């Protein structure tokens, strides 16, 4: 039996539901020795901004129980360098490309989307309104409905391409934010970004991150991510891209059962550079073994009675 692994996220057609989580896969080149990039559902690029950002001071990561903190702070060389280096590289790779965009202001988001909109390598945008690691903008936009909707609306006006809005888990009610960005024109929502956390070195009395706080990712956050994907997918009608601690195919299945149409593999890429393929192959095998003809049947198939 061959399993139909294709899924649709709005207008975006993916070979399989396994995408890369922004910031954990660069633009793919670094992983090309480990996985066949053209076998991915999509590459979601690292976050790009209009101008170059230098990110935060080091140390920028800390390991925690079943997780890690990062405070990279969206270091990137700006959109022009991104076009020259990353998109040029991706031109030769047969894979849908989702560009993750960030800004310090609404105007920056819009300028960025406009600059990238007619670029043929860009198949969709993921609007990052949930980065906990930048001072201006970032998560602040993603933790209340009004700015979240404003940014979505403005980006929506700037592109006809599929628009994914990436939500922050650091909120009282993620459903409210999801509904706001859906109403403002998002074609899909992706969640979750990292949980704001902190680590301390008891030996030195110092925070482990130079920035003190950072974003928690990895298996530790999977229960929170699953809960939010379930809540959001029950409330919105646009597709949900689920992520947060996916390490195995079973993890991906769980996110799909909770309501995700596609999933992203993040931190797992650091532990195992072949993780995306391992998850995609395992997902197909999972369906095959159970006689599930189309992987998309898993979406929302959670049995709650």
């Amino acid at each position, binding site marked *: 039996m061959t399993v139909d692994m294709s899924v649709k996220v709005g207008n975006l057609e993916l070979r399989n539901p396994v995408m890369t989580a922004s910031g954990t896969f660069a633009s793919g080149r*670094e992983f090309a020795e480990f996985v066949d990039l053209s076998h991915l559902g999509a590459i979601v690029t690292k976050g790009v901004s209009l101008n170059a950002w230098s990110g935060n001071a080091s140390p920028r990561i800390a390991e*925690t129980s079943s997780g890690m903190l*990062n405070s990279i702070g969206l270091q990137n060389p700006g959109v022009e360098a991104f076009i020259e280096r990353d998109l040029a590289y991706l031109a030769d790779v047969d894979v849908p490309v989702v560009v993750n965009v960030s800004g310090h202001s609404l105007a920056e988001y819009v300028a960025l989307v406009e600059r990238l909109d007619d670029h043929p390598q860009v198949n969709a945008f993921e609007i990052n309104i949930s980065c906990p690691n930048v001072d201006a903008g970032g998560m602040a936009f993603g933790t209340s409905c009004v700015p979240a909707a404003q940014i979505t609306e403005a980006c929506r006006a700037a592109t006809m391409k599929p628009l994914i809005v990436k939500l922050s888990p650091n909120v009282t009610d993620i459903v409210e934010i999801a509904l706001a960005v859906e109403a403002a024109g998002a074609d899909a929502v992706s969640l979750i970004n990292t949980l704001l956390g902190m680590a301390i070195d008891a030996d030195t009395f*110092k925070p482990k991150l130079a920035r003190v706080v950072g974003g928690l990712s990895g298996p530790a956050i999977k229960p929170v991510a699953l809960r939010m994907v379930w809540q959001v997918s029950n409330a919105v009608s646009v597709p949900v891209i689920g992520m947060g601690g996916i390490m195995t195919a079973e993890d991906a299945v769980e996110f799909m059962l909770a309501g995700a149409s596609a999933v992203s593999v993040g931190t797992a890429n650091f532990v195992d550079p072949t993780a995306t393929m391992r998850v995609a192959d395992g997902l197909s095998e999972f369906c095959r073994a159970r006689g599930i003809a189309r992987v998309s049947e898993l979406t929302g198939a959670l049995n709650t009675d």
Partner: protein
Amino acid sequence: MSCAHDTAEPRRVLEGVSVLSNERVTEGVGLLVLRAPHVASTVRPGQFVHLRIARGRDFVLRRPFSVHRVRGESIEILYQVLGTGTREMSLLEPGAVCDLVGPLGAGWIVPEGLAHALIVTGGLGAAPLGMLAEQLAASGAAVTVAMGAPTAERLVARGLYEDVARVVDVATDDGSAGVHGFVTALSERLLGEHQFDVVYCCGPEAMQRIVAAQAAVAGVACQVSLERLMACGIGACLSCVVSTHSGLKRACVDGPVFNAEEVLWDSSEIPPKH
């Protein structure tokens, strides 16, 4: 000295490896020998491997370790027990299987026609220079080594260096071997006494910084190997940045070996424990 790496980088792979032996070298230091045919046959001096010490989700991150020496299909890692991962590492028994990603990073550069190299090591900094010392000696270059450590016992890999180097000068913090004091006193003297083509240095970042300054004064090219916290090890995550005159570089792919004059010594080094 050319800054570009002369040959194509060896292919990086995820390699399943097995433990051949794991012996205590001295208090808190072990030597792990792994069967790792791919890395063994392709690694160059100064490169490292990203080791997954234990299965399970407890250790979300791999741990980077330099390849100390290669023997046939096996690689040797000289490691210091510092935290949770290296403690776990010290418990690995022969036969245990794990995996690594490697070989990674840009190693030491050997300039064309090198005749006399000075190697300066501090503590476990002796690890990533072992393979280099062996290869330099094999190529007929003269090697002088200055080693420093807290005590005589902690002069790890001293035997290796004595086998291949013309001179091995040692310094210990407690005077239990060689000169009483820091290895930087040795390097300063040696740089005054001899004409070196290049200085290779690894150890605590503060020490590397001093040696780099000494080399600059002496007008000798100097390469250093910098440690940074690393998540991916393959250039994707930007957790390992080093400030240089040409901007932020990634220690895992642009380094760990850097041309010392490129480095903007800053506060992003990993603070030494205790």
